[in-house]
């Protein structure tokens, strides 16, 4: 038994930290924040060259064929760096949708180019109700002679404005069984994406309108049944990993600041009020890291309780991130309220991460249900 990272994984982690500290310092993050597209194409090219975009793409489709745990290690570092761009959503969530739901042909059509970084994809699930409950998914997929016609509106779709395809959850028939997933190409007629004004400017999310968008039969993912739940599992782990890295970084910044800022003739980090706060935060972060490792490993090893583990990780880590970022701003005093100081990048990113792919209340309820109470 070894509940821990392998040496290769430790190297992956420290390599990623090194790389991002050079290639994605906050000066770069801020530059991308200020641009309309929010894409960071040069950075994306570099991470593709490192193989990150193909991390969980099976080898037969041109990826590295590694697991969710390896991806989670990278995503933790991306959260630590507040890395902008579609990486998590394309290489984590969209790849998962194809890997879990696609036929071999569908995988062959999309995965190699996702892995190489040539294309990006995204996944569209929630609608106006902002709910993962299948009953709240109403975008309609009506049969027509050559395939389906999609009508409806999706909300909070990451990087849809630039995605080469969108995997969209749609209702072909009423009732819980009637959900299907379709791969819609970015330039499809009737498809339009509007970038939402988002507090977390390290991300771009869109409202996506489907106005009689026609898709062929082969655009329907082969294994749609149960896919929503599996995607929630994958999305939960992806987001939880970002939360872990972000929480670590926010606390680290606050602790470092507390060592140099002096008031009352001593460093503020010597005041017990701040010491105990920081201790509580790290005491929440470290056990939650164990939850994340287990959840990611659970998907790789197809453990029986993988879904529950994913929900546990997301419920805990997203709450921990918000609280840590919040308190870390407070530990900075007035300087933490400025635009110039970087701490607000994580403060805001936490708020995107917390509800995305299910907020803590949703995931706690799912934990209870999956535990049989």
């Amino acid at each position: 038994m070894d509940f821990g990272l392998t040496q290769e994984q430790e190297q992956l982690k420290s390599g990623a930290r090194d790389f991002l500290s050079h290639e994605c310092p906050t000066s770069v993050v801020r530059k991308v924040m200020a641009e309309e597209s929010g894409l960071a194409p040069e950075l994306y090219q570099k991470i593709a060259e490192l193989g990150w975009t193909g991390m969980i793409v099976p080898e037969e489709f041109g990826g590295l064929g590694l697991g969710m745990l390896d991806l989670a290690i990278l995503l933790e570092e991306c959260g630590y760096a507040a890395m902008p761009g579609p990486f998590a959503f394309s290489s984590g969530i969209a790849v998962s949708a194809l890997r879990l739901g696609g036929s071999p042909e569908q995988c062959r059509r999309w995965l190699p180019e996702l892995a190489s970084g040539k294309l990006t994809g995204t996944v569209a699930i929630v609608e106006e109700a902002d709910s993962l409950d299948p009953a709240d998914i109403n975008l309609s997929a009506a049969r027509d002679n050559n395939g389906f016609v999609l009508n409806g509106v999706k909300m909070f779709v990451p990087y849809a404005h630039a995605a080469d395809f969108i995997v969209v959850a749609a209702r072909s028939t009423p009732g819980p069984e009637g959900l299907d997933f379709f791969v819609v190409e970015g330039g499809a007629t009737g498809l339009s994406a509007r970038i939402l004004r988002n507090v977390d400017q390290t991300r771009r999310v869109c409202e996506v309108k489907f106005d009689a968008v026609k898709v062929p039969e082969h655009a329907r993912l082969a294994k749609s049944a149960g896919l929503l739940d599996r995607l929630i599992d994958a999305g939960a782990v992806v987001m939880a990993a970002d939360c872990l890295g972000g929480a670590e970084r926010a606390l680290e910044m606050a602790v470092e600041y507390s060592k140099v800022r002096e008031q009352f003739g001593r460093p503020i980090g010597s005041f017990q009020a701040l010491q105990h706060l920081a201790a509580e935060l790290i005491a929440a972060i470290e056990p939650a890291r164990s939850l994340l490792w287990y959840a990611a490993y659970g998907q790789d090893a197809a453990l029986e309780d993988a879904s529950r583990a994913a929900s546990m990780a997301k419920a805990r880590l997203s709450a921990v991130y918000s609280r840590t970022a919040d308190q870390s701003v407070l530990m900075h005093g007035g300087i933490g309220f400025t635009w110039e100081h970087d701490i607000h990048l994580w403060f805001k990113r936490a708020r995107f991460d917390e509800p995305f792919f299910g907020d803590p209340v949703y995931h706690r309820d799912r934990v209870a249900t999956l535990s049989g109470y």
Partner: protein
Amino acid sequence: MDLNLTAEEEAFRNRVRDWLAHNRPLALHQRGVVDGKTWVQRAKDWQRRLYEAGYLALSWPKEYGGQALDPMRQAIVSEELMRANVPGVIGSNAISMLGPTLITWGTEEHKRRYLPKILTGEEIWCQGYSEPGAGSDLASLRTRAELAGDEFVVNGQKVWTSGAHIADWMFALVRTNPDAPKHKGISYLLIDMKSPGITVRPLVQMNGEADFCEVFFDNVRVPRANLVGELNEGWKVANTTMVHERNWLGASPKRLFDKIVERASQQRRGGVALTQHPLYRQRLADIQIDVEAMRLHALRLLSNAIHKRPGGVENMVAKLVGTELNHRMALTAMDMLGDYAAMARGEPSAYDRGVWSATWMGSIARMFGGGTSEIQKNVIAERGLGMPRSR
């Protein structure tokens, strides 16, 4: 990441499980039902049975009664003991705290003399650290031990000493040099509780039990040979003990959680079980997540130990989080039970014979031993996060 046991470990686990199924003691749980002496005897018998079966202190060296097995075997046994819901071991404080200290610091003579009887339960130990003036600030302790020839002469008082009234021996911290800085004048002594000049006065606890005591020393003579480590180096010696104590107290709380969910699913208001009540359902799941986090966290720390990875601040949080979680679980149960929560142990109308109020009070006690939560946070902040010292 590899969560599988080897075939031998799996077989070992099955052997332990099987043994426990056939050897679980019956009457031990009902402490207070039998008289104190009988209970102590039965508890010692149970410990001896466990030891003879090979299920105590598996990682200790063979020559002192251990089996020199890796920490994984010990963890398997601990998990099975927990799962089987058998009573704890009466000598557990000595096994987890004193034993490792003697193995590290004791003389050959100490090890041969004391370790085997710690394991068999033939000798029960108590921990003589706290004093009226020395709690969290343990290093300010004043119980004085003066060297007179081959003996120390001990005078002073200990307090909150759990089990002093049933103990044969005490491992104690005493002041041997009052003029040195406070951490530098302390020594670690093994004191025979039958020595003339010792008076033990049990204190009644808030839960009505009399587990901890005051212990008075009036010119108590202790052979110099009972000194562990060098003279005036007791602080260093004791710190090994405290590290082990922290590992011990963070034990997995899953069993308690399962009982709470069971209780909640039986508890109905307006025809709806509390597991379906939106607030309690959320609270239960929130706790369950922490319970699972601590289970996994323990696996992580165990893996660090097995694979000899140093680890970092993660090693420091288990006692704090574990005991706070235990307390939070007890509070949730109390909140759920409404008026029944305030019923005392043994009240016939109370749920589960009033065990919940006892659990609640017990959860408080666990937060003191080995350093209060506040002290844990001081240590985590200053040593774990490197924040500047507060004093």
